[in-house]
């Protein structure tokens, strides 16, 4: 990891916009989830303020992906409440639609639509969900594609792009819906090492602009540089959370120590 850590540390990070406000973006209280009889998430309590950048880490199977998938209702939770931007996720389908259109999500395997061009990938949801006129949607899409530095690929198909480029397109696709919160589900895990940096750069850029972000990632360099809070999860529960500096330098729980020693050890 050291390589990427240095590459991020080299970068001048502009913290002027990274302000955490008092406004609550996401509030999760006593949330529980089961797969059949398997208790995946246990008594999760988490409040995310607007402008916060949270990194969630933990061993595989600890429930971290499930947690953020619950936030935009890709998974259903069975107990407790999740409130996103004042909308409580319930069985009301309208609320689910509302939350989904306000929360952007980036997946480990990009999940771009292979039958559509990059531009069409980005304009699809604005046109069909937000009912934005096509030209306006395309302008927005080009704006964000420029932001992730691949406007010249707009007319290509996802299959013609490298992994890193695809993931940046996936970020741009989410941004086109003008979300107020972005969720990242291990966005760099499926990438070759040399492509991780370009995706992390894009994410840092987002953070600099004050986006509320929750990232499931093992990029500890990114966590140290950008996050204002790191959460460690194991066995479906939040074990420890703290500011990055304190988290990395002085972990309290034994599990956290073990985990950190395993991933930072070499």
């Amino acid at each position, binding site marked *: 990891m050291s390589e990427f850590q240095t590459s991020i540390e080299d970068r001048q990070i502009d913290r002027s916009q990274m302000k955490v406000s008092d406004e609550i973006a996401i509030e999760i209280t006593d949330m529980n989830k089961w797969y059949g009889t398997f208790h995946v998430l246990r008594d999760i309590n988490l409040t995310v303020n607007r402008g916060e950048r949270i990194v969630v880490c933990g061993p595989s199977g600890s429930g971290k992906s499930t947690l953020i998938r619950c936030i935009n209702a890709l998974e259903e939770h069975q107990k407790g409440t999740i409130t996103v931007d004042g909308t409580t996720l319930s069985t009301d389908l309208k609320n689910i639609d509302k939350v*989904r259109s306000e929360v952007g999500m980036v997946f480990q395997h990009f999940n771009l639509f292979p*039958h559509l061009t990059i531009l069409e990938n980005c304009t699809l949801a604005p046109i069909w969900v937000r009912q934005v006129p096509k030209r306006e949607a395309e302008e927005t899409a080009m704006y964000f594609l420029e932001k992730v530095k691949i406007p010249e690929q707009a007319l290509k198909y996802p299959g013609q792009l490298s992994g890193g480029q695809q993931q940046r397109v996936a970020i741009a696709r989410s941004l086109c819906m003008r979300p107020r919160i972005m969720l990242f589900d291990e966005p760099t895990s499926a990438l070759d090492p040399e492509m991780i940096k370009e995706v992390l750069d894009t994410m840092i850029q987002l953070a600099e602009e004050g986006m509320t972000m929750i990232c499931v990632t093992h990029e500890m360099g990114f966590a140290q540089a950008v996050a204002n809070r790191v959460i460690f999860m194991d066995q479906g529960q939040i074990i420890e959370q703290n500011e990055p500096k304190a988290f990395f330098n002085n972990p309290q729980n034994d599990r956290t120590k073990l985990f950190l020693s395993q991933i930072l050890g070499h």
Partner: protein
Amino acid sequence: MSGQSSIAFVRGDIIPPAPPPPGQTGVLRWMRENLFSSVTNTLLTLLSLYLIWSVLSAVMPWTLNGVWVAGSLNECREIRDARGLETAACWAVINERWLQLLFGFYPTDDRLLASLFYAEPLAAAGGMDAIFGAGSNATTRIEFVNAMKADLSNLTIFFFGYWRPLVAVALLVVAVAPILYANLPRGLLWLSLAYPFIGVFLFWGGSVWGPALVALGLVAALFLGRLVAGRSGLLAGALTALGAFVVIFLNPLGVIGHSGLFPLLPHVKGVMDGLLPMGLPAIPSDQFGGFMLAIIIGTSGIVLSLPIGILLALGRQSTMPFIRWVCVTFIEVIRGVPLIVWLFVASTLLKYFLPPGSNFDALLRVIILVTLFASAYIAEVVRGGLAALPKGQYEAADSLGLDYWKSMRLIVLPQALKISIPGIVNTFIGLFKDTTLVVFVGLRDPLGLTNAIRATPEWNGIYWELYIFVALLFFTFCFFMSRYSMYLERKLQTDRR
């Protein structure tokens, strides 16, 4: 030299490529490797060559010495004996009857034939009206037409007498092309949409206003639905379209004018026919036959079954148990029972299930049952396509806030259907071959026509030539379709990489 440097090596000059040693290339080596590499292989080669030789030596003389011009089977045999041949095929029957095998008893456009190629005898007989006019004598007309057909070559009759089915099939090819080949201009898709109406008009004839008004009604209903969908949601739009459709086509409870169940369409059609009569001579379906029948039933079966099959496949994947159960039951029942039994349902049972007094023609009944039959198979093919899509695609669509129907229409189905095209083509080939079964419910498919030809005194007792011709017709068609589907499969494999 030290011990360390003995493992270090740097190449100074690059070795140029050299030819392989002799005896490693050439025809002989290739034959040795492929045909005679071992005792078993040599035996297999010899056995195969013997097999080919014995089949060819039995079949080729019969085929190549065939008699091409004769009026009957007996005449064929006389010619064969006169030539001193032991065996000879009687291709004359194909030469004489191929039009019938292709088109059955579908009538030729005699007016066109007469005016183009038989103008003088027509004038001598008193002109178009005297022969074909309203008050003309049927016997004279039949005699005239028979004389004309005897004079004209079969090729002329094929191209000009049967121009309607020919144009319809040619347009069909053009209409299907943009669906099968993605790099053709997208504008052609409009023709694909319009084709069902054009095809029906060309094959069945009658007033042009029938198909045109149905098309207009559909367009109007869809347009209205779309207008409403843009303002107040997809569901409302779909309901509006359905409502408009019902009003336009069935006009229940007299929404427009009349009372009771008053279908608007025939009424408007009558008015339009009065105002601007246009059309082709109507041809009832009992005159359809031959290879053309196979194409009509096969194509309409597949095209009509696609939407039903897609809905069934989606239903089978649904999270709603009742919907899933209904779809699974339908698919399994249809697939569990042979097509021939379904055809008997069409010919004998359908009349029980419909309101008393409703009666419609045999071809339409067969097409309905064939459509239902094919839709179960298409559903399974599409289900395979749906299953092949990675779960991430559904999740990405969900996370963007697309609802079920939008994510199906925009994300899932375009990809799933593309994967399914080879399977759909294969289903089509299967269905196309199965159209020969309609002979059992009294339609005149090519095999039924071979019986009809055999029933004539001239060709009594002729089997092989007719079967071979029909088999070759089907083979050519199906072979190219299956090659196409293989090409697609290969292309899909490379695309997905």
